[in-house]
C-alpha cells in the first residue's frame, strides 16, 4: 500500500492560508460594490470579456473535473481528449455564436427566466425547481469530494473538511454575490494552472518527454490503444479503451450531453450574462474555449504519467484508485513549497465547483421562485438580502447533500447521471423553442416533464437492476439521448394540439427576432470578433483531434 499522506510543512500551510485570506478579502471588497439586485446576481452586467470568459471555464474546473479527467487519462489514455475537443468546444462555440443573442438580448436574469418569457409560468416553475435541486446536489458532490481529498492528503476528518470549505464559500458569496464568485474563479483558474503545469513538467521530464511517455504507455495495461483519440471507434469493431463507437462519442457525448451541459446550465451561462455588453457575452464562452483547447495537456497528461510511474495505479489496493492519480503524483514529485501550491490548486478547484453552483442557486431561488411567485413587489434591497440568506441556506443544504453524495462510490458517474436528467431535456426544449416560433407554451412544459421523467426512470431502472447498460457512463449517454428524443417528440405533438403565443410576444426570444445590442455602434477591434474567435477555436479542436487521431 502506498502512502498518500502528504509531507506538508509550515510553508505549504502558509501558502494555503494566504490563498484563503485573499479569497475572503475579495468577498469583503466586492461587498462595497453591491447596491442593487442586478449587482448582486449579475455583477451589474459590467464585467469585461476576459474576466467572464476565464470565470466561465473556471466554473467548470471543479475538482471532480480535475481529478476525474486525470483518472480518465490513466484509465483510457489519449481518448479522454474527446471530452474536450468533441465533447465541449463545439457546444461552447454554439452557445456563444448562436444562443447568446437570445439569452443576453432578452435581458433575462437567469436561464429559467427565459422559459417564463418564451413559454409560461408553469414551465418556468418546473425548471426553476429542478434546477435549484440539481445545483444543490452538485454543490454537495463538490463539498464531499473536497472533504475526501483533505482526509486523504492531510488526514482531516471528512466532516471538518466539509464545514471549513462550506464556511469559506458561504462567506465570500453571501458578501459579494456573483462578482465575488467570478473574481475568485478567475484567481482560481490561475492557481489551478500554477498547480498543474509544474506537476506535468516534472512528470514529463521524469518519463523522458512525450516519446518516453509513449513507450511507457505501450508497455502499460492500456497499450498502443491508449495513444489514440479516435482510432478503433468504428461501430461493430470498437477497440478504443473508452469503449464507445464514434457515433456514441459524436452524438451522445458531443451533441446531447455537451450541448445540454454547456448551453443550458445556468451555473455556466450566468457568467456570460454578467458581461458588459452582447459582444462580451458572446465572447465569454469563446474565451473560455481557448483554455479548454489546451487543458488536456495539463489534466490528461498527468493521468497518463501517473499510469507510467506509479506501479499498481488502478488496482484494488487501498488508495490506488484512478481518482488519486494527481494526489499520488504530487506526493511522488513535489517538494515543500510547490506542494503547498498544488494543494491550494486542488482546494481552489473544489471551491470553484461549490461556488459556481451556489451563486446560480441563490439567483434562481430569488429571481425565479421568490420574486415572481412567493413575495412579489418587495423593494430591490429586500431581494438582495434574500439572496444572501438563500446563499447561506443553499450551502447549509449542500452540507446535507454532501452526505448523500458520500453514498456513491463513483462521483463522476453520479454527476453525469444528474446532467442526463436535468440538462439533456432542457436542451431539447431550448433548441426547439429558439428556432421554431410555432412551439407552444404547453409544449414547453410537457416536453420538459416528459424528458426529465424519461431520464429519471432510466436512471432508477438501471440502479434497481431492471434495465441493463454496459456501464454507468453508457447509462447516462442513453439517458441523455432518450430524454432529448422524448422531449422533442412530446414537444412537437403537444405543439400541434395547442395554441402558440402571438408572434409579437416573442420579440428577442426566437431565431430571426433577436434584439439589437444597444452598444452595437461600439466598433470592435478585429480580434474581438466573436465569429473569428469561435471558428479559430473550432479549427484548433479539429487540428488537435487529427494530430492525436
Amino acid at each position: 500500500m502506498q502512502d498518500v499522506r502528504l509531507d506538508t510543512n509550515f510553508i505549504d500551510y502558509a501558502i494555503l492560508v494566504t490563498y484563503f485570506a485573499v479569497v475572503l478579502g475579495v468577498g469583503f471588497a466586492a461587498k462595497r460594490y453591491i447596491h442593487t439586485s442586478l449587482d448582486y446576481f449579475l455583477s451589474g452586467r459590467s464585467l469585461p470579456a476576459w474576466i467572464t470568459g476565464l470565470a466561465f471555464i473556471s466554473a467548470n474546473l471543479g475538482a471532480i473535473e480535475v481529478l476525474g479527467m486525470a483518472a480518465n487519462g490513466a484509465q483510457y489514455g489519449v481518448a479522454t481528449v474527446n471530452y474536450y475537443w468533441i465533447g465541449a468546444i463545439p457546444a461552447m462555440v454554439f452557445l456563444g455564436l448562436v444562443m447568446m443573442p437570445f439569452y443576453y438580448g432578452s435581458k433575462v436574469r437567469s436561464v429559467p427566466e427565459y422559459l417564463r418569457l418564451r413559454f409560461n409560468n408553469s414551465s418556468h416553475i418546473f425548471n426553476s425547481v429542478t434546477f435549484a435541486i440539481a445545483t444543490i446536489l452538485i454543490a454537495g458532490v463538490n463539498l464531499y469530494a473536497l472533504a475526501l481529498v483533505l482526509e486523504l492528503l492531510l488526514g482531516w476528518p471528512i466532516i471538518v473538511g466539509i464545514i471549513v470549505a462550506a464556511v469559506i464559500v458561504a462567506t465570500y458569496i453571501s458578501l459579494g454575490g456573483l462578482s465575488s464568485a467570478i473574481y475568485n474563479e478567475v484567481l482560481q483558474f490561475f492557481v489551478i494552472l500554477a498547480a498543474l503545469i509544474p506537476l506535468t513538467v516534472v512528470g514529463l521530464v521524469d518519463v523522458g518527454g512525450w516519446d518516453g511517455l509513449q513507450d511507457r504507455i505501450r508497455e502499460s495495461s492500456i497499450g498502443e490503444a491508449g495513444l489514440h483519440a479516435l482510432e478503433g471507434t468504428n461501430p461493430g469493431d470498437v477497440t478504443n479503451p473508452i469503449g464507445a463507437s464514434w457515433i456514441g462519442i459524436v452524438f451522445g457525448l458531443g451533441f446531447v450531453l455537451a450541448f445540454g451541459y454547456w448551453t443550458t446550465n445556468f451555473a455556466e451561462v450566468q457568467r456570460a450574462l454578467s458581461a458588459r455588453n452582447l459582444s462580451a457575452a458572446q465572447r465569454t464562452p469563446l474565451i473560455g474555449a481557448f483554455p479548454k483547447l489546451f487543458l488536456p495537456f495539463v489534466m490528461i497528461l498527468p493521468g497518463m504519467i501517473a499510469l507510467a510511474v506509479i506501479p499498481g495505479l488502478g488496482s484494488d489496493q487501498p488508495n490506488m484508485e484512478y481518482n488519486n492519480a494527481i494526489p499520488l503524483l504530487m506526493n511522488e514529485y513535489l517538494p515543500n513549497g510547490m506542494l503547498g501550491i498544488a494543494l491550494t490548486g486542488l482546494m481552489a478547484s473544489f471551491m470553484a465547483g461549490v461556488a459556481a453552483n451556489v451563486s446560480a442557486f441563490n439567483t434562481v431561488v430569488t429571481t425565479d421562485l421568490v420574486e415572481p411567485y412567493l413575495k412579489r413587489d418587495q423593494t430591490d434591497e429586500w431581494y438582495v438580502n434574500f439572496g444572501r440568506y438563500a446563499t447561506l441556506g443553499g450551502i447549509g443544504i449542500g452540507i446535507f447533500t454532501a452526505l448523500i453524495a458520500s453514498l456513491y462510490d463513483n462521483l463522476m458517474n453520479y454527476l453525469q447521471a444528474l446532467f442526463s436528467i436535468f440538462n439533456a431535456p432542457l436542451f431539447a426544449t431550448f433548441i426547439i423553442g429558439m428556432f421554431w416560433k410555432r412551439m407552444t407554451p404547453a409544449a414547453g412544459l410537457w416536453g420538459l416533464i416528459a424528458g426529465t421523467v424519461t431520464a429519471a426512470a432510466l436512471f432508477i431502472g438501471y440502479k434497481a437492476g431492471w434495465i441493463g447498460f454496459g456501464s454507468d457512463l453508457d447509462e447516462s449517454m442513453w439517458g441523455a439521448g432518450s430524454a432529448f428524443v422524448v422531449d422533442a417528440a412530446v414537444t412537437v405533438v403537444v405543439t400541434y394540439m395547442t395554441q402558440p403565443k402571438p408572434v409579437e410576444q416573442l420579440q428577442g426570444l426566437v431565431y430571426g427576432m433577436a434584439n439589437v445590442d444597444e452598444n452595437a455602434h461600439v466598433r470592435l477591434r478585429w480580434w474581438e470578433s466573436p465569429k473569428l474567435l469561435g471558428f479559430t477555436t473550432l479549427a484548433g479542436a479539429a487540428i488537435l483531434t487529427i494530430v492525436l487521431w
Partner: protein
Amino acid sequence: MAESDPLIERTEAAAGTSGTRAAQAANLFDLRRIIGGVFLVWGVALSILGVTESDAEIAKAADVNINLWAGLGMLAISGCFLLWAFTRPLGEELRAAGEGEPSAPPGAPAPRGVDAAALGSHQRSRRAREDRTSGGGEGDAGRE
C-alpha cells in the same frame, strides 16, 4: 415582448437609480493587481525555496529544481499582470470614461460598458460617447 416584462423592468430600473455605471464600477477593485500580488508573494517564496533547495528534494522531482522554476514562472506572470494594471490604471480609465456617461433615459436600458478592466474600450468608443455627452455627468461621477 421581452423588454416590457414587469419583473425585469423593475430590476433594470433599480439598477438605473444607483448612480452611474462609472460610479458603480469604480467600486470594483482591480482584479489584475490581486492576481499579480498573489503570484508576486508566492513567486518570491518559491524562488527563495528553490535557491536554497537541498539535493535530496531536487532528486525527488526528477532532478528538476521545480520550486525555482515555478517561482520564476510565477514572477513572470505576476509581472505581466502588474505591468498591465499599472500601464493602464483603473482610476484614470474610469474617470475618463465616467465623464461621458449619460444618465439612463427612462424606459431605455442603462448604458453598459464602463467597467473596471474594460481598458481601452472607452478609447475606441470615445467618439460615440462624445456624441451622447449631452446627458451630462452625474452628481457622483467624480466619486472614487
